[in-house]
């Protein structure tokens, strides 16, 4: 191995370690459980107050105060349900039947979301008759 190669290997090692450190701290800072409705209900007590990403489908019956931006709805995994409270900008893709990912916390009764991502199924796929 030539000297330049050794130096280069060292530089690579430093780069990889640096990137790894950034990735590690970044991941630790933004890691959250990624759960379905049923999984969250099963683990409910253990996850009280923890940061959770929750995935499910919006049920019909959405209460939305457009002026305050307060939104209350229920999401389901097909069998079980969790009520959700959210305040903020509602994406256009949000509607009953849409699949959503919520970021927030669960207090055992209501899921309080601080972020709301919605993926309308018909954005990429034809939707045969709603939910």
């Amino acid at each position: 191995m030539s000297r330049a190669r050794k130096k280069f290997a060292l530089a690579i090692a430093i780069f990889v370690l640096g990137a790894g450190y950034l990735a590690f701290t970044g991941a630790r800072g933004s890691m959250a459980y990624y759960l379905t409705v049923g999984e969250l209900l099963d683990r409910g007590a253990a996850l009280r107050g923890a940061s959770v990403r929750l995935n499910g489908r919006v049920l019909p019956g959405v209460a939305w105060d457009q002026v305050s931006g307060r939104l209350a709805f229920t999401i389901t995994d097909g069998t079980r349900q969790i009520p959700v409270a959210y305040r903020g900008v509602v994406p256009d893709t949000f509607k009953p039947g849409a699949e959503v990912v919520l970021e927030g916390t669960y207090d055992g009764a209501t899921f309080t979301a601080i972020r709301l991502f919605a993926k309308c199924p018909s954005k990429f796929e034809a939707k045969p008759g709603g939910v």
Partner: protein
Amino acid sequence: MSEIGNLSVALAALVSAYGLVAALLGAGLGRADLQHSARNATYALFLLLTVASAVLLWQLLARDFGNAYVASYTSRDLGFWYTVSAWWAGQAGSLLFWAWLLAGFGALVVWRQSAYRELMPYVVATVMGTSSFFTLLLALVSSPFARLPFPPADGQGLNPLLQNPGMFFHPPTQYLGYVGFTIPFAFAVAAMATKRLDDEWIRATRRWTLASWFFLSLGILFGMQWAYVELGWGGYWAWDPVENASLMPWLTGTAFLHSVMIQEKRDMLKVWNLVLIILTFGLSIFGTFLTRSGVLSSVHSFALSSLGPLFFAFIALVLIVSFTLLAVRLPWLKSEGDLDSLVSREASFLFNNLILVGAAFSVFLGTIFPLVSEAVRGVKISVGAPFFNQVNIPIGLALLLVMGLCPLLAWRKASAANLSRNFLAPGALGLLTAFLLRVRGVGQPVAVAAFALCAFVTATILLDFHRGAMVRRSHGEPYPVALGRLVLRNRRRYGGYIVHLGVILLFAGMAGGAFRTEREAVLRQGQTVAINQYTLRYEGLSQYPTPGALVTAATLTVFNGDEPVGVLNPQRNIHRGHEEQPMTEVAIRSTLLEDLYVILAGIGEDGSANFRVIVNPLMMWMWIGGALLSLGTLVAFWPERREALRARARYLLVGAEA
């Protein structure tokens, strides 16, 4: 009509399979007639898929709602161009679009590049193998010609979100990029299969690579533009899996584009280049799959999507075959050149590659993190935007730095004279920029570093333009002519520089995001909201129908200081057929300095309205950077006749010796 479509697709699948077998047999047995027949099969494939596409387009335009795909994505009131865009709006149609592009590219290669006689059977085999997969999907799993038993009176219409010029252009450009990388990959496979492992395959596909990279870049930019104006949350990038899927092949493709230069010039990195193109192709297929199914957004949809297992099987097959071939050929892939110094152009190219691949890897890891954590710890854990930002912002800054250093470092070993000549003045300018920004009270260290690096890199590039032009001027050309000829006579080099200038503007635009400000306000008629130097007065609501929608528009008068500068009309529209999904249409006032971005978030019963107002600094420079990047690619792409002739002569010479 649908029968013709179905028949064409079925025949296309058969022709693909035949082409694959004939090409491989033809090469293996040395049968010229089989090779010839396989080449002709690409023309047949293109013809068949063109017929299928024409049938689909005809049915879309004729509103043949008996076709399930047509009924799902169009309606009677949809305009001509958006009806055309329905071709790639849904899964089945976009798969047909993919296969059609691939067949077109395959036919183009066979037609224009058949001089690469020994490589061609394997190139054809790779294209046909890929095409077999897509045509089989079309024929058996996801047909765009499925019929409905009872045709509806009207279709469901195109999702209003997709009715935007950005969405007309984004998918085709993205796909041109994804599909285009098949050709360099096919030549790489052919080079490995035939042991013709010098830089022939790279020279043969240089322009394919460049064009694919260009369309991928353009696709990402159109996507960002669409997200910015249509999704209405004030940003253009959210590290969504679908976005990540388009970014990953772009990152590895960019690395490939650069590292092949090292192989051409110094005969190094042969294995690495093959690895990069294999990864880029694999990620392109992965990207197609993710955008088509949106799988990673939900926790359990891998199993739910019928395409998922098939795509994964295909990607696995591609990776296993390519890497096995690569492993078998390792003894033929010894590098002739070696790394002489850490401060040399080779080394800086290596760092550029390391950075780009590192970024791609981090994005990949973040995207599939839930799957990994479930496999390792039995629980799905996902990472959000902070992860991607924390890793990729430093990586981006490092990339910017290398972009300034790389093109001007000497080959082999840079001398102190070389360093001071090229970097002293730009380095000083960069530091001065940082200093001035700090003095002016700009507090964001990351943004300050980004702007300083932008200034540094811009200076190195302009300095090199200037020096080149001065040399020509000393031979008697006036300065502007000298500058123009300099670029035209060295298109690859100076085209590349222009692309770099575009990328710098993109970085500057992204750095501007650090100074974004945001206000939220519920206003009654006549009330105002202030943000930075702007004041917006809410004048009232108006409602009117258009052919496709009921529009509710707010009127806001914008004051810059005390001076009225314009009126903004953010809207909430109810589209016919999508009543449950009101569409926010943002209003944007763009200047070179900043965008004023207004969202009508909600409307109260009493006429009061909820606004979100955002000031996005330097946004315009992102789009200008994108235009400059396109211009630069065009310059680098424009054929140099002499080079083409040389390459051909070289090829014939090598062929004669063999």
